[in-house]
Structures are given as structure tokens and as C-alpha cells.
């Protein structure tokens, strides 16, 4: 009995399925957001560390690499928020029919992109203004 092989799973299951894709993306964006908390903690610790530490942190936080990370986190946030709302609706027992969950998968995908586009536009605008003002 023990030497029976295990049938393949991840390697054969179709990944580009709405159910699989929305679920794994929700997981990955959640992990990314948790990791992104490090940035928030760094900012808060610098703020608590006095003017000198805070000034140094502002330099780090406004660097190009951090801006890219911040945009990635914004994208993750946009999707994770909507996927979380979808899960809340599911937990209330609604929207669980196959056709409904297919539609809501498309909905959170597209709405997530729009939300990210809006947030990213607003953020970039803010960065340009800050840059033009020469404040930092």
C-alpha cells in the first residue's frame, strides 16, 4: 500500500482557471502586503527616532527602488481589497453559483486594475509635485 505513487497535482492542474487564478493571486498579494509592512514599520520607527533619523528615512523612502516597491504594493492592495470583499460576500452565502463567481472573478480583476491605475496616477502626481516643489 505504502509504495503506491501519488498522482500529480500542481504540475497537471490547469492554472489559468478563474477559480485557481483569483485564489492564488489573493494569496500572493496578501503575502506581498505583509512583507510590505516592513516599509511601514521602518517609517514609523524612523519617525519615533527623532528628526535626524526621520530625515535619513525620507531619503531612503523617496528613492527610485522604494517607489517601485510602493507601486507594486499599491497593485497588491488594489486586488487584495476587492478579493477580500468578494470573500466577505461569499461568506454571507451569496454569489457562490458557478456563473456568479465567474462574473465576480472578471469584475475584481478589471476593477482591481482600474483602482490600481487611479491610485498609481494619484501617487505619481503627488511625487511629481513634491519633486517640483523641491521640498525633498
Amino acid at each position, binding site marked *: *500500500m505504502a*509504495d*503506491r*505513487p*501519488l*498522482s*500529480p*497535482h*500542481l*504540475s*497537471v*492542474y*490547469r*492554472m489559468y*482557471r*478563474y*477559480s*485557481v487564478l*483569483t*485564489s492564488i493571486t489573493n494569496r500572493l498579494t496578501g503575502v506581498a502586503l505583509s512583507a510590505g509592512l516592513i516599509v511601514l514599520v521602518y517609517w514609523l520607527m524612523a519617525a519615533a527616532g527623532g528628526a535626524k533619523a526621520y530625515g535619513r528615512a525620507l531619503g531612503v523612502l523617496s528613492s527610485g527602488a522604494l517607489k517601485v516597491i510602493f507601486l507594486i504594493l499599491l497593485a497588491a492592495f488594489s486586488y487584495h481589497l476587492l478579493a477580500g470583499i468578494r*470573500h466577505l460576500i*461569499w*461568506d*454571507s*452565502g451569496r454569489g*457562490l*453559483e*458557478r456563473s456568479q*463567481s465567474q462574473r465576480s472573478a472578471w469584475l475584481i480583476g478589471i476593477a482591481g486594475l482600474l483602482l490600481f491605475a487611479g491610485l498609481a496616477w494619484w501617487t505619481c502626481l503627488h511625487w511629481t509635485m513634491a519633486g517640483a516643489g523641491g521640498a525633498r
Partner: protein
Amino acid sequence: MADFRLPANSRIRKGTTHTAPEGAREVRTFRIYRFDPDSGENPRVDTFELEAGECGQMVLDALIRIKSTVDSSLTFRRSCREGICGSCAMNIDGVNRLACITSLHDLGREVRIYPLPHMPVVKDLVPDLTHFYAQYASVKPWLLAHQSPPPPDRERLQSKAEQEKIDRPAACILCACCSTSCPSYWWNSDRYLGPAALLAAYRWIIDSRDEAGGERLDALEDPFKLYRCHTIMNCTDVCPKDLNPARAIAEIKKMLVERQS
């Protein structure tokens, strides 16, 4: 725990190729998982080329064709050939379905066929469902009504509305397509009951004649048996009978919350 890699004895070797007969006009290719328990060798994937016109309508027809004309050792379960027995559940082109009601016309020129995912394989496309059935039995899928004996002169009656509530959940054929499509079940099938067993539990919890609803809920109130469901929705996605285990599980979770207040 979740182990994303296959164990050493399960890794797939290259198999043999059975080329199409001479003069075949249109070829259909089937890549099929093979495991021979008597050989002591790892599983392999064999390639079978068939004349498209001779495959038949459904995936099961093609499998039977291969078994009767190319390789009689090809092993799979089948019985009713009309989607009611649930025997021929397998992973076809990456999705769990019944071979007998999956039309070849809906698939590409090349069809990949594997046993139901993350299950011990007895032979070829035959998975060992012992544990799956044991989980089904563990939810006591029968009427529990000890307080009130049935009326002596007739059956326990239900209203039409009461019956309609269990129509769909009771139509489960236990093919295991849902449970073996669920990543939570893949990683935790030792403790998570899986969509099929939970759908059965739900069917009895909401049965108007059943009197053990509370005990049934008690038995499910467990971080693993029930709450490993993270609403991935693969179960409802693949159910060949168009049932909805995901909704059944959500309703059970709701009942557990509601009875606390």
C-alpha cells in the same frame, strides 16, 4: 503539510509512443498516465495516436478504443457511460471531469489524461478512494431520527419545498472530482473532510426529517474538518452534476455562527 513536489516514487518517466496507423488522415493524440504496480517502476506517460474518426464522441470512447485496439493493459474505471455512476472521474486536460460526458469536440487535438490529482494510484487511471469514502462515511450520511419513530401507517413525509432544498445536494454521485480538485484537500486530506463529504453533511443537516442537526454541526466544528475550506471554488467549478459544494460549506459555516447567538 503541503508538499508541492511529488515523492520520489511518483515522479513521471518518459513513456512509450504508439504511433497512428499507416494512412491515418487526421490524428488525435492522447497522453495518458500509466502506472503498473507489478513492475516496481515509476509512473510514466504513454502517447497514443488514433485516427480521429475512430475515437468516438467522448473521452471514454477513446479510452475504450485504445484498450481494445492498442494496449489492453490500459486500466480505468467506467460503468454507466452517462454521467450517473461517477466511476470514470479523471483529470482531463488539467480539469477533473467524467470521461463519459466530456466530448472530444470540446478538447484540442492533443488530450492529456491523468488520474484524479493527489491521490494514491492503484493502477493507471485508477485512484485509491478508500480514504475518500471513509470521510464520506464519517459524516453519517443517513437519517438520524431517534426521538420520533416513523408513523406506523406511512412514510416520514416532507413538503415539496423541504424536498427541493435537498434535491441538488442529494444528487451527488461521489465521483470525487470536487475533493481532488481542491488544493486544501491536496495538502490536508488527512484532516480536512473535503467538499464531497461536507456537501453530504449539509444535505443531512438541512433534511427536514433529520433530528441530529446539532450533533452533526458539533462534529464539523473543527479547524481542520471544515475550516480548511478557503472558498477557492474549484469544487463548484468542476462538479459534473452542477452541484455546489462551496455554497453548502458556506451555509454550514453560517449555521455554526448563527447558533452561537
